């Protein structure tokens, strides 16, 4: 209940905020934060809900971005291209996930790491299609829809906000349905999950396909906002960055995914001056979070809310006494 209220407040704030603070730089940061939040939420489906650590998530971000960009450059409407890109990405997820997710243990982490490298290699070397290291330009903006014509950053902001809300809703529905429960059981203990009638491989592969599709939507949004794609954006470090956001925010938690995406995006902006120390700080943060706060920011928040609740209650009884 508390979580829902917090999310509702966050949404209201997100809608109101840019109306009063119209500043292109700030709006840009928020759009990038929103894209990151979608990416983190997508990773949370497979790594948080299902407990399968993916180390190549930037690959699906890249597949979504390039597929949507290339399709729309062939004349397809951006909106359709984005959806097709999500489907392509989901299929790629099936292709990687099917052989690997049937197996237990760490093979998935290795396979996704490898997949991430392969996709990056292909984007970099398939110059005829992707234009390789020179980068892909001439990507169209989305066709205008009632209220938004995408000539200004603020229009993109509202689109991304809508997508974020949609993905949060999707995540919550998934988590509360039998699929979410099956994934939680798989995360806790695969043998037990199977014994309870859960088709473990099916759910893991399905979760991965969803995860890949959502990441591709973030990719499409990115492509049609930035209007230029470079292989650099989708290399291994980007995958680690998404995982970092999820870990800091709180793996398995929807609220945590949102917080992690926002926090690290903003922190990275602040740390820009200390770019060379940034990654070391992140590395130390990862080790610290895993050892001392495995539930991340959302865990800390819950703890604080608990303390506050107790303090509040105590205050109330004092008054009534």
């Amino acid at each position: 209940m508390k979580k829902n209220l917090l999310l509702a407040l966050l949404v209201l704030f997100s809608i109101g905020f840019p109306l009063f603070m119209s500043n292109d730089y700030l709006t840009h940061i928020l759009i990038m934060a929103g894209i990151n939040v979608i990416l983190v939420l997508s990773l949370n489906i497979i790594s948080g809900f299902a407990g399968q650590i993916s180390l190549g998530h930037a690959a699906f971000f890249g597949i979504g971005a390039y597929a949507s960009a290339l399709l729309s450059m062939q004349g397809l409407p951006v909106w359709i291209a984005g959806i097709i890109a999500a489907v392509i990405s989901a299929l790629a997820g099936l292709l990687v996930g099917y052989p690997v997710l049937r197996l237990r243990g760490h093979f998935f982490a290795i396979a996704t790491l490898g997949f991430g490298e392969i996709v990056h290699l292909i984007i970099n070397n398939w110059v005829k299609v992707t234009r390789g290291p020179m980068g892909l330009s001439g990507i169209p903006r989305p066709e205008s829809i009632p209220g938004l014509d995408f000539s200004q950053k603020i229009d993109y902001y509202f689109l991304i906000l809508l997508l974020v809300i949609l993905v949060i809703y999707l995540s919550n529905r998934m988590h509360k349905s039998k699929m979410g429960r099956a994934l939680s059981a798989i995360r806790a203990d695969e043998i037990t999950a199977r014994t309870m009638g859960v088709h473990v491989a099916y759910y893991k592969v399905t979760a991965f396909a969803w995860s890949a599709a959502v990441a591709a939507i973030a990719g499409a949004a990115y492509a049609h906002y930035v209007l230029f794609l470079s292989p650099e954006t989708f290399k291994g470090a980007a995958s680690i960055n998404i995982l970092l956001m999820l870990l800091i925010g709180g793996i398995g938690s929807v609220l945590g995914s949102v917080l992690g995406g926002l926090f690290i995006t903003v922190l990275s902006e602040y740390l820009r001056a200390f770019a060379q120390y940034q990654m070391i700080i992140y590395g130390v943060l990862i080790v610290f979070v895993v050892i001392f706060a495995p539930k991340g920011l959302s865990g800390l928040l819950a703890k604080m809310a608990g303390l506050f609740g107790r303090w509040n209650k105590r205050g109330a009884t004092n008054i009534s006494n």
Partner: protein
Amino acid sequence: MVEFLQQTINGLVMGSSYVLTALGLTLIFGMLDMLNFAHGELLMAGAFIATTLVEVFHVSYLVAIPVSMLVVAILGVIMHRLAFHPLRNSERVNLLVSSLGVSIILQNAVQLIWGPDPRNLPSPFTNLQISFGGLGINQQRLFVVLVSILLIILLYYVIQKSKIGIAMRACAFDMDVAKLMGIKANNIIMFTFAIGASLAASAGTLLAPIFSVYPTMGVMATVKAFVVVLMGGVGNITGAIAGGFILGLVETYAAGYWSSEYKDVIAFVIMILVLLLKPAGLFGKQVQEKV
């Protein structure tokens, strides 16, 4: 024919470095059910330490190799104590994530100290050739293969014959039973980290004169080593040795006769095939999980 032999030598060079890197990884994987993503960074650290010893302190290359192996062994133990040991009772996934953090720290620490630009480690053998008929072999490459084989035999002997090696195998087979038998599992784990780290460092120092040395060189090394571990079967020493040489040869032939750009894809294709067809490894027996 000459070209083929040349490729074979190159393949053996790559293969021996894969074996040296994978041995530590497979031992730890078997023992702790843990993927150590920072393992390749130990190779990188070994290469940087050796380069600094030779370039700054003018130590001989042959001395720099064991010194950097020793330093990295200590680094491996410190890494275990700080980042992995505190997580011994938590979910296995947390160990993986923590090792990822360590890998990022090491990469960027090295980048801060030595800068991002590639360096070269001078070796007395680099510019010498031995020729057999029409075949010219670079002495450094020969040196890599010989030293690697020596180290592999040494490790094999330690694991199969020595008391500590038997304890290591016992821990890898069943940690709980090993503890009941009076084996100090913690010491064995630390020893294994030290051995694994120094072997990775040896791979780094041996290859450094042939390829360049740069902060992110460990990433691919980790990935390749994982593929080798999978090929050989988790925890399987003999499998890792065979797997490493096979991967090195296949990759080199593919680069030579097909495409050097996509050479790195080969490893992943092999990995996916192994996972699909022989998930217990090319040489492993199918093991049922204990329930």
